[in-house]
């Protein structure tokens, strides 16, 4: 059979057969990337807004560094996080290597610059007059930040969409720090890699289709949120 048709059929069967392994893989992918994006948003959005709204020495350099880090290759992140979390590394005593937590940390390192940089650029592109008006109405720092973030919410949501897309589709970092351990740290992308190496292209493609479907569904939800926010 044509491998692509075969992949589609298998993807369908895998999903409706409730194969526990496939579901554990899907769930882990979602939870790891979801946790990374949530923590990334909780830290990256305030950080990005802070950079955009304050003027300080080295702001441009910081922005350039942040923008560069958005393109950080996942394998490099994986390697660095591995060296930090390894038993012989500085955080070795925590024994986090080859656990889902390590994978969240690695993806967080990847996702943080994306969230911060996109948030910063969308906050700084909000009309300057709004800022002046808010200040003239007596807004303090945090009120100003919240107002500006509200105005830039489309951009902030874009940051989340981009971050989630980058996190769930990356394989280099989770492979190195997670180790692709069956039932424990195997995500969709590492499973696809393994199945491809084993030459089981049908299953590999099926998992790929599941991954694609998943990020499509999540993106539809986020995009709806984004546009409904804009219309209000």
């Amino acid at each position, binding site marked *: 059979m044509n491998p692509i048709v075969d992949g589609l059929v298998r993807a369908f069967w895998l999903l409706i057969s409730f194969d526990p392994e496939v579901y554990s893989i899907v769930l882990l992918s979602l*939870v790891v990337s979801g*946790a990374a994006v*949530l*923590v990334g*948003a*909780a830290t990256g959005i*305030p950080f990005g807004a802070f950079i955009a709204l304050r003027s300080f020495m080295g702001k441009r350099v910081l922005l350039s560094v942040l923008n560069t880090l958005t393109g950080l290759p996942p394998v490099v992140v994986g390697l660095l996080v591995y060296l930090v979390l*390894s*038993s*012989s*590394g500085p955080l*070795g*005593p925590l*024994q986090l*290597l*080859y*656990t*889902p*937590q390590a994978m*969240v940390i690695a993806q967080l390192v990847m996702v943080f610059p994306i969230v911060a940089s996109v948030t910063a650029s969308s906050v700084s592109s909000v009309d300057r007059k709004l800022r002046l008006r808010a200040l003239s109405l007596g807004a303090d720092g*945090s*009120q100003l930040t*919240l107002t500006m973030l509200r105005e830039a919410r489309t951009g902030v949501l874009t940051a989340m969409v981009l971050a989630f897309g980058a996190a769930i589709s990356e394989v280099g970092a989770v492979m190195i720090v997670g*180790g*692709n*351990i*069956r039932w*424990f740290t195997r995500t969709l992308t590492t499973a696809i890699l*393994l199945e491809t*190496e*084993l*030459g089981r292209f049908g299953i590999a493609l099926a998992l790929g289709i599941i991954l694609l479907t998943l990020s499509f569904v999540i993106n539809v939800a986020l995009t709806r949120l984004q546009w409904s926010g804009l219309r209000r």
Partner: protein
Amino acid sequence: MGRRLLSILIVSVVLAGAVIVFQYWSYRARPVIILATTTSLYDSGLLDYLNPRFLETSNVEIQVLAKGSGESIEIAKRGDVDIVLVHSRTLEEEFIASGYGVHRVGVMYNDFIIIGPKADPAQVSGLRDAELAFSKIRETGRLRRSFFVSRADRSGTHLKELEIWQSLGLNPSSSIEPWYVEAGSGMGVALRMANEKQAYILTDRGTWISFKDQLSNLKILVEGDQVLLNPYAAIPVNPEKHYHRNFKAAVIFVKFLISDEGQRLIGDFKKGEERLFWPMARDFQMAAQLGFPDQAKEVSWYDMQPFQFRQAAVPVAAALCSRTAHSYVTARSEVEFDGAR
């Protein structure tokens, strides 16, 4: 400042949620050890077949990392795994000599084979001499009539291949040789590359058996040379170098592998009709031939280690907070030997 409070609240809820998820994941009901092994062994499925049986008898869970022998030993030196199951004598001996690995013991063996295109331009089919076959492959390669795919990933298979080139006084990767293709990947990928390029390649028999349905252009050409025997060694990480590793559970795993039961299971493991591994832990003569001169001593050391073990009591706090309060570190050191106390 309602909004400010709200934003702080949201951030802290998210962070607290993340911490709870972290903790939830950390909880392991039973001791866990991490085993680093070779891709060829992992791909064979032997560990997926052994581990449930080991879990049943010991209540120790094995998490398997599939890496090349070189990388496995490297991460073991860093203390990131509890035990390695690898096949490269030089690396293993260096691992022992540097003090990071202890009680190396042979578990089983299979053999390497040279496979290649059915047309066999180098005329090596039926040879029983790996060196001769390699030199012929190199000759036709230099005449641009054949290719050789090398794993080039410091795996046991790759190091065996280099060893054979070395005994011919050669090092094909030292210069750019178009016939010598350095894949830098696992056994399965390299095999498929050889299949596409109609190239020769050195592989272990187990992986060949698992993959041969996908490799329509290749067949076995050279087998049966003594040099091509492929023994697997189990080596726990030295607890004196890495005290946090679960040495006791690693020893229990080795005891299982070399027990009569474990050896029987290994011998019974089949793919289709074919046996993939030959147990040899208690065949000391064979073991000595395969590079385990101390096999008898090590096996009796393992036999002397107490093997009754029980599950440690769950700490009170952990029982109260159910799955959230238990730390990974304590779970790892939970196995206690009855006999040891």
